[in-house]
């Protein structure tokens, strides 16, 4: 049996992304070989209904996006509904500021964010990381591996650079001009 076919079988039964090191161990071959075989497998899947996706520190087989309309009609468990705008904003704050407390998220957004954070926690996209050693022991939140998998990035380092999303200087200029009183 070809190595790429064996990898396909392993990834078929896997319930989460599988790190290259783990596949290397099961197959007793060097990592480089696993990587080469993964590339081969990916190429052989090109016109198929499933594809290879790298996320959350490992690899996973998933259905192709083009098949989604049919898969959705058919799937046993309903696919999770879209997140609200509020939940998405909270998710972005947690992703870039983690570990972060509920109060900090609310402060950044300027609005109480408890309900949205709970939704994200229920969806498994964030989780309580620990509690802060300050009065009240507030919980702090961090994103999960499931978040990385769903966003389709290998690690936090692969998230879009926050600096690229800062509004242009002209925005701040017009704000400063409008809010005035800076000539002194």
């Amino acid at each position, binding site marked *: 049996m070809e190595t790429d076919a064996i990898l396909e079988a392993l990834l078929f039964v896997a319930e989460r992304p599988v790190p290259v090191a783990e596949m290397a161990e099961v197959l007793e071959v060097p990592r480089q070989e696993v990587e080469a075989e993964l590339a081969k497998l990916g190429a052989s899947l090109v016109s198929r209904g499933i594809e290879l996706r790298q996320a959350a520190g490992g690899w996973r087989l*998933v259905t192709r996006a083009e098949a989604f309309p049919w898969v959705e009609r058919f799937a046993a468990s309903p696919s999770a509904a879209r997140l609200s705008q509020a939940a998405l*904003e909270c998710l*972005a704050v947690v992703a870039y500021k983690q570990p972060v407390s509920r109060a900090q998220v609310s402060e950044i957004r300027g609005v109480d964010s408890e309900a949205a954070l709970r939704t994200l926690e229920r969806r498994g996209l964030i989780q309580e990381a620990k509690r802060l050693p300050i009065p009240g022991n507030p919980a702090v939140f961090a994103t999960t591996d499931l978040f990385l998998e769903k966003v389709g990035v290998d690690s936090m380092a692969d998230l879009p650079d926050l600096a690229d999303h800062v509004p242009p200087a002209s*925005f701040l200029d*017009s704000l400063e001009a409008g809010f005035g009183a800076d000539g002194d």
Partner: protein
Amino acid sequence: MTYEVKTAAFEGPLDLLLQLITRHQVDVTAISLGDLVTEYLSYLDEMRVLNLDVTSEFLLIATTLIQLKARQLLPTTAELDLDEELALMEERDRLLSRLLACVTFKDVAAVIGLRLQDGARHLPRTLGITEEVGEQTVEVRVPIDAVGLAALAIRILRRPREPELDHLDLDLPSVEVAIEDLRRRLADDIETTFDAVVSDLERRVEVVAYFLALLELARWGLLEVSQEDWLSDIVIKRAER
């Protein structure tokens, strides 16, 4: 049927302020603080009329805006209390940096939203190793002990089921947003059901907004709505063009 959303959909004071700023920015380079203050305060009035909770956060920002406006009106030759002046500048800078952070996170949230949407279209297999490959060989590892399990149980059982309305501040549902969302969904999918569309909504008012959106889109002929009998699913189909 007419349905008007009198208050624009905004979430909290920073979001409101940002929306007002963005609206003005379309045609002017410098925002007129005077207009901003007037509009901001008129929204606070409207909220009071609607019996919505005007939190202290709204009032704090209003105070800063009014003070800045007052400062602008003073002649440059006027004698100023240096401490007060410094405090005001600090308040202003704090507000500006909060606005910037808010815009930045909104922007990146949109990207994350798109990525999640894309990710949701790729489904993994969840069945694991099935019997024909000998599942008895699977050595299951439970990564927590009894104490950990109890702590986890407490956390799950204590999660609020239904978010309370007064926590939601001004997250008013908007029919306009619902219409946009419905159109986006039907661009993705050929057919769906009303239940599927509203399955994630936590409040009845939101479901109502989606229902009104549905009627509106059907009226425009952009989608077809059918229901076998009054208890069955409402099926929504993209209209053939």
